[in-house]
């Protein structure tokens, strides 16, 4: 798992296509991520994957050391395991928040405590992921935390030729008016705010529908299929891309 993103981009097909998007972002920012996780193998995989995506990863195996590093090296984002030797993950976050450190934090936790999510978010975590998780989900969420859309007064969103009027609730692609149902409008709005960013199914469910649950059917795919059918007309360049095994990306180009 020592592939650097450059090599991977060179051979990129299939799932690696997603890596291209991340890699571009990663190179541009050279973002620093602090990972506090006690299981060394998990940490190794996460570190390698994030390094592939162009992140600069610092790893700490316990809470006390993690808190020190968070204070000294000022990372752009943090991934914190819930259960840590030395100091509990939530305590680390709480301590940081008390110091007015606003670094976005993704909390990791093993299954077995439903309340953990609520508590994790209450303690100052920004997002929550339960183990076992897919690496691609972790990266997508870190990306999302790092690139949270800025609050703007813009009432129209633009991605390529796609245009969304938030006041009139209308959508256009070039001159073609797209007729959207309210739920499709919400979905497209969310995706346009996060264009060029991989959005996983779980993220879409949580953010667009505002529910955290595991649907029995491929719900999101059906909704996305309908939206794509409307957004990408016949003969037009595809804008909504399905990344296999991961999620969806809205991109201006192909």
């Amino acid at each position, binding site marked *: 798992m020592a592939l650097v993103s450059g090599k991977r981009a060179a*051979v990129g*097909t*299939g*799932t690696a296509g997603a890596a291209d998007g991340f890699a571009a972002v990663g190179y541009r920012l050279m973002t620093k991520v602090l990972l506090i996780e006690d299981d060394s193998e998990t940490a190794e995989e996460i570190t390698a994957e994030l390094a592939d995506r162009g992140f600069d990863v610092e790893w700490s195996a316990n809470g006390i050391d993690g808190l020190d590093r968070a204070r000294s090296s000022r990372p752009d984002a943090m991934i914190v395991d819930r259960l840590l030797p030395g100091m509990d993950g939530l305590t680390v976050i709480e301590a940081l928040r008390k110091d007015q450190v606003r670094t976005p934090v993704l909390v990791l936790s093993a*299954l*077995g*405590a*439903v*309340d953990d999510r*609520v508590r994790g978010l209450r303690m100052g975590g920004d997002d929550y992921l339960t183990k*076992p998780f*897919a690496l691609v989900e972790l990266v997508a969420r870190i990306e999302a935390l790092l690139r949270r859309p800025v609050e703007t007064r813009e009432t129209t969103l633009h991605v390529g030729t796609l245009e969304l009027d938030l006041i009139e609730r209308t959508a256009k692609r070039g001159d073609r008016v797209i007729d959207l149902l309210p*739920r499709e409008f919400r979905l497209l709005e969310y995706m346009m705010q996060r264009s060029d960013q991989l959005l996983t199914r779980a993220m879409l469910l949580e953010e667009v*529908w505002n*529910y*955290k*649950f*595991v*649907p*029995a*059917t491929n*719900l999101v795919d*059906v*909704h996305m*299929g*309908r939206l794509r059918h409307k957004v990408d007309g016949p003969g037009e360049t595809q804008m909504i891309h399905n990344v*296999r*095994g991961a999620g969806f990306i809205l991109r201006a180009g192909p």
Partner: protein
Amino acid sequence: MREPHFIRSSTFRRALAVAGMFAVFVIVLFGFIYWQTDDYLIARSDKMIATQLNSIAGLSGAQQTDAIDQHLKEDSRGVQYAALFDADGRRIAGNLQQLPPELKMNDSVQSISVVRMFPAGAQARVIRAVGRRMPNGDALVIGRDVDEAREISHVVGQALALGLLPAFCLCLMAGAWLSMRAQRRVEEVNQRVQRIIAGDLRERLPHRDVDESFSRLAGIVNGMLDEMETMIHALAGVGNDIAHDLRTPLTRARLVLERGRTNATTLEQFHAVTDKAITSIDQSLAIITALLRLAEIENSRRLAAFEDVPLHDMLREVCDMYEPIAENKNVDLRVEVKHRSSVRGDRNLLFEAFANLVDNAVKFTPEGGRVDVELTRGDNETIVRVIDTGCGIGEREREAVLRRFYRSDKVRSTPGVGLGLNLVAAIVKLHGFKLVIQPGPGGRMEVICPDRSLG
């Protein structure tokens, strides 16, 4: 030397304490009887000597001497004392050697020490006596030996020895027996429990058909063991089911990888193989995740995240979410709110439960059918009804569908993990609601939310 085991047992110690208390009580009782009887006898004899004094004092000089002699002669037990002394203290008649100097001549009966004359000599005695000075200066003394008291104490002592000692011993023996018996039973229970711990789930505690606390306790524990045995077997069954359900995708992954390793020649082919393997592994993970979540919800007691959840909005959202799927299948999905109603609950879990019900309904309804979601009120309860025109759930299957991994033969071909209704049931139970499967035609699921539910 170690004291015998039973002596340390609390049963024996209690028996010992009871025996001790019993002995003290009996001794006090006997003492009281002795004291009362003694008092009574002394009072009686006091009265007798006072009467005799009066009767002898009422006689004239010579008659007094005769009366005293007569009186003493009639005393076969030798307990009577009588004597007449002249003014100078010389004895005129009777069996007292001399006038006791401490005797007060005031007609009151006193305990006093005297010297009695026997034909063989003299002997000192303590008796009850009364004295009176006659008008002519003579001193008349009448007395009585109260050795009855001594006899009584002797009798009481014997009674004590005869009654108390055996009773005390009996108490101790009973205590020792009870404690040894209890210990034997505890030991027996311990041996069986050890066998249960060692894994023999069929072992039970000894139980006798008598209404006795030990047997009742054993009965209760056995009942618990029965229940646990059933549960463990059920769990083992679930384990087998899980193993089976996990094996399928894992076998697929293994086959794909194995064949891919030999056959894939290009990177594209290799990617395709990996994707297939990942999909299969994800499926197994999904099963494990679903099971863990289920266990988590079933075991959780959380009410902390409970809030007021407006069901009318939630049901509309559920249907909005599933509409495209229903539409793709040409199933008519409708929601009808007859009554706006909120319940207390966890909105994510409740959404998941209703989404699962609607998901099932849509999945099992054939093309061209319809699914109705209704929100109505019953007596002090809110009812969510999901009705579909699918095959429904047969009466015999109604319990089975709530079992893990159960999939009706009718729908075996439809994809799914087979945990959906379990999850619904667990969530509904967590909220204190009720899941009812109504008889068809078609599927009719009801979630009944009582107004005074948990929280």
